[in-house]
Every structure is written in C-alpha cells, then in structure tokens.
C-alpha cells in the first residue's frame, strides 16, 4: 500500500502502527513531531494509529534557524 510521507510517495508492505513504523526506521523518538492526516499525534498515541492506504504523514524536526 502507498502512503505519502513528507510529500513523497512511500510503499509499505503491511499494515503497521505508526509507533512500529517509527521504530523500524530508527527515527529518534524524542526529536520529531508527527502530523497524521493533518492532525498532530502525540507520541503516546503513535501505537494506536494504524497506517493505511492513502494516509498522509508529515514528520518534522527542529533545525537551526534565525
């Protein structure tokens, strides 16, 4: 199935929770903010979100800026 991650198409093999997907990608937990279909999902709810066809994820982090 296909989902959109940060504006790019990405393919997932199976249904997977957001929590699990983040772990598999080795994304450091404490430093990212995730928006799922336009809604900010706090980390404690990542385990309850099942990724499905057509979902849109925005994964953000802080960078240097003025």
């Amino acid at each position, binding site marked *: 199935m296909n989902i959109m991650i940060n*504006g790019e198409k990405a393919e997932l093999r199976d249904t997977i929770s957001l929590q699990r997907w983040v772990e598999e990608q080795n994304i450091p937990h404490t*430093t*990212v903010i995730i928006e799922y279909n336009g809604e*900010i999902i706090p980390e404690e709810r990542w385990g309850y979100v099942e990724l499905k066809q057509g979902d849109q994820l925005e*994964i*953000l982090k*802080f960078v240097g800026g003025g």
Partner: protein
Amino acid sequence: MQQVNCELLNDPFEIGGQKLRSRLFTGTGKFSSHELVPQIIEASGTQVVTMALRRLDWRNPQENILNYIPKGITLLPNTSGARTAEEAIRIARLAKAAGCGNWIKIEVIQDQRYLLPDNPETLIAAEQLVKEGFVVLPYMSPDLGTARRLESVGAAAVMPLGAPIGSNRGLQTRELIRILIEEISLPIIVDAGIGRPSEAAEALEMGAAAVLVNTAIATADQPLEMAHAFRLAVEAGRSAYLAGLGARRDQAEASSPLTGFLREE
C-alpha cells in the same frame, strides 16, 4: 568617588512573564556544526534562541538542534517557511506540540528576494496564536499602524527588521524603528539585518529592548569571538541608553575652557 550604579547597568526586561537579563537573542542557523551552538550560546550570554521546523529526511534522520541547546534557555521557534497566516499558525501548533514551550516568533514571508515580512498576514496569525495561549513575537516590517494592532491583539513584543534577513546591512530602517520605540509600549526587538556589533549597540542606545542576531555571528570568521563581541556591544548600548546620551549639535562646542589661553590677544 561615586561608584558606577550597577543596578542601572543590569536591568532585566520581561517578555511573556519571564525576566531576561540578556538583551541579545541569537539564532541557530548557518553554523558550520551543531557543536558550535552551545558554545555560541555561552559566549553570547543569550537566554533566548531561535530555531526552525522542517521536514525530517526520514530515510536518514539527523540529529536535532534541540539536543544542542542547554537547559534553561528559552526556545523561540520561528514559523519560517510560512507564506500565510494559516501556515504560520500550523507551524506554531506543531512547535508547541513538540514540547518547545509556548513562545513563537511569527514569520510570514511571501517575497523571496528580500524576505520581507507580510504584515497583514502576520497580524492575523498573531491574533489567533495569542488566543491559543502563545507568547507571540512577530517579525514585522517597521510600520506603526501594524505595531499598534499587534499590541492591541496581545503580542508580547514586536520584532521590526533593520535590513533584509541575512544582509548584514545594519539599521536601514532606523527612523521607523525609532518611531516604534517612541510610540509602542511593548519591547521592540530589532530582528534581521544587524551585521556588526556597533549596529546592535546603536539599536540598544536608541531604546530597543533587545536585538536578535544570527547571520552576523554565524558567518563571521570566528563565530565565538563575534558572539562575545555582540554581547559586549549590547551591554554597552543598553548602558548608554540608561545613562542618557548627550545632545547632538551641528557645530562644535569646546570641551576645554575657552579662557586662560597661553597666547597674546
């Protein structure tokens, strides 16, 4: 001998209920490495630093800038990248959700050549974010009408530009900033364009509450030494403002007595 009044030289100011001793805010962009950031913070004596929110390269996650900012420093995420009030509001909410506190520097820009802020959109975003409980610091073009409206909707400060972002051109908008300082009771924080410590000192001498500096430090040959130079300049400028500058004159007025000359008249 009369002592220098240290109370006069060490006057905190308040934003969003927080007392700040340092009047130098620093940005974290353009540094050659993240490791420099905590050193810059120390050398500059800053208590407030800015950062930006961007998409993560999730296939290759890099370290987060927040890991390099010491505890006790107030985080001031910006909404850079926002072209409308709506986008700025979205970024602000994301930053807050990330646990960055509730301070936000609103930055709404459509013009890509000069990166000048869009005042009407900035005002819309400010009004909404104040309602949502943010401590709102809007980056703005120094316009009195906009500053008054920002004050009336509850902004915590206004941040007029001195010159375009990253230009190091100094206080090109000096006269308009002077008017804001005179007419607006909020702290005026000169943001963008300050390229030299002397320009930061001048902003403080004029009565600006603080300055925000990034490019001038980050692009100096020796960023740490430049951060320290800005610290001294900001302290000097504030001290001069509190001491009260002498009057300017068009013609000379002798500093030495005009009597008792050693010459024949």
